[in-house]
């Protein structure tokens, strides 16, 4: 179909989005070429100096980036495994099926920052229930103030918050699968494990790839949880890219430099997601 009316449908949304975005994006590009900060708040032109600094003299940015990769890949992997497991369980007949489906969805409906505030009290090192229980075993882990453990705490909260989203996408996918392949598998006498390996998993591959990519994109923006739970600490132990850009831009007011960080980060992200998507497709669709 091809009618002039098509523009009436597309343009309102497209123009509104463009109108809102065109200034911020253009301005960020311009800002990244200036030295705007709180001491000298003006849009001067310093060429690619910010970018030179970023690539030669800012280990903290790259460390934050490495940490972000570790955090997001690990949590999304855990979310995928757990989410898929839970989806498989409540896909089939189980007692209180609907109750569990609702329950497993609930965390994603809650506001991450607000739940993180609760988690902070939960993991409180002297007043929280976790250490209260562990104290019976004479343990008192420093959930929030140990360099290694604080990363782990962030992961727990992320897994709690976002496994439901993975669960939702995968369960919706499972429910949309055709019945015939499963019938064929059961006629061939395949057990649950063989059915999963040869039927369910390959059929779910496209949905899995989509769900993992979506979650990776969302996970790469992780910021709220870190801000409330540890404020990037202790030291820089839980500092992620977004949080580092936030500190440079909105805590130290180095607007120019943070714009350069933002753009570099965005470009790295777009490239990584393209590569990750290709790798995932290779890995998961290889069988068919």
């Amino acid at each position, binding site marked *: *179909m091809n009618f002039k009316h*098509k*523009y*009436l*449908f*597309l343009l*309102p*949304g*497209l123009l*509104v*989005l463009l109108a*809102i975005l065109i*200034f*911020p*994006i253009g301005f*960020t590009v311009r*800002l990244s070429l200036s030295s705007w900060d709180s001491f000298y708040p003006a849009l001067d032109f310093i060429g690619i100096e910010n970018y030179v600094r970023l690539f030669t003299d800012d280990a903290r940015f790259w460390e934050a980036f490495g940490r972000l990769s570790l955090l997001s890949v690990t949590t999304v992997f855990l979310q995928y495994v*757990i989410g898929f497991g839970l989806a498989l*369980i*409540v896909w089939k007949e*189980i007692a209180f099926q*609907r109750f*569990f*489906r*609702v*329950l*497993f*969805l609930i965390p994603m*409906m*809650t*506001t991450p*920052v*607000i*739940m993180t*505030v*609760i988690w902070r*009290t*939960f993991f409180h090192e002297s*007043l*929280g*229930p976790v250490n*209260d229980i562990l104290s019976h075993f004479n343990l008192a882990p420093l959930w929030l103030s140990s360099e290694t453990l604080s990363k782990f705490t962030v992961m727990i909260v992320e897994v709690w918050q976002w496994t439901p989203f993975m669960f*939702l996408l995968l369960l*919706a*996918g499972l*429910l*949309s699968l055709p019945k015939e392949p499963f019938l064929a598998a059961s006629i061939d006498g395949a057990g*649950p494990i063989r059915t999963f390996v040869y039927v369910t998993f390959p059929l779910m591959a496209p949905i899995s790839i989509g769900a993992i990519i979506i979650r990776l994109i969302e996970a*790469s923006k992780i*910021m709220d949880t870190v801000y409330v739970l540890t404020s990037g600490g202790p030291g820089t132990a839980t500092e992620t*890219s*977004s949080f580092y*850009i*936030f500190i440079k*831009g909105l805590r130290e007011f180095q*607007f120019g430099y943070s714009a350069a960080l*933002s*753009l570099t*980060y*965005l470009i790295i992200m777009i490239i990584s997601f393209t590569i990750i998507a290709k790798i995932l497709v290779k890995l998961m669709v290889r069988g068919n």
Partner: protein
Amino acid sequence: MRVLYTSLKYLAVVLWSTFVIAPFLWAVSTSFKDFQSVTNGATYIPWVDFEPNLEGWRALWKSPAQGGVDIVEPFFNSVFVTASGSLISIVLGTLAAYALSRFTFKAGFIRNGDITFFFISQRIMPPVVLAIPFFIMLGKFSLLDTLAGLIIVYIVLLMPIAVWIMVDFFNKVPVEIDETALIDGCNPLQAFYKVVLPNSIPGIIVAGMFCMIFGWTDFFFSFILTFTEVQLLPVAIVALNSSITPWWSLSAAALVSVAPLVLVAFIVERYLSKGNLSGALK
């Protein structure tokens, strides 16, 4: 073998359920505590471990001057911003998704897929990247610290979600239905609202729920772009997370702010079980 499999299955479900519920139970318990029962170490069961009181819940209705937390106004601000942002995003996003699903667009090297990608790719952008330029832009138009300014930002946040879900949805509605409407005398606009729209309600509801979830749970933009005049719920609650935290009112406030969307979980599940979600989510 079968018994082992079944018991492992139930064990997994029970363990995960405990993990899911734990922070809520803790928050419910904490919301009935007072200074004494919080600072003496972790306590759990009211009347047994501590003497419950309603201080935390009462604080929700008091103004900050009286030592309350006043989340009533932030609550309605959040409702208003989320609802308006979602509504605008759904309307514009549904129209755009319909265009992208049904018609062909060509402009230079740009095709439908590229336009769809442009919409959806806005989700890759971390809030912090947009926050600074938005801060300056909204400042220019005197929209900082206003509801209208937040709604504008929420459109960027939510329209990609609406487009993503609705393009998939429309791709599954046979185009012959639209064609039949055209043949029966509808122009493309009439075909859309008389025939396509009434048959797209499940997709729109799903898109609407997702917009509401991501709108309601957003923190960063309202955190950066509002100060004193306008406060949204997450910001109001996080503001309580200061040095001497009143855990009881914090917990009560958190429960109130989380409650509305828990209802959404029931609706999502209903759609899921009826098989409507699988049509709307790929």
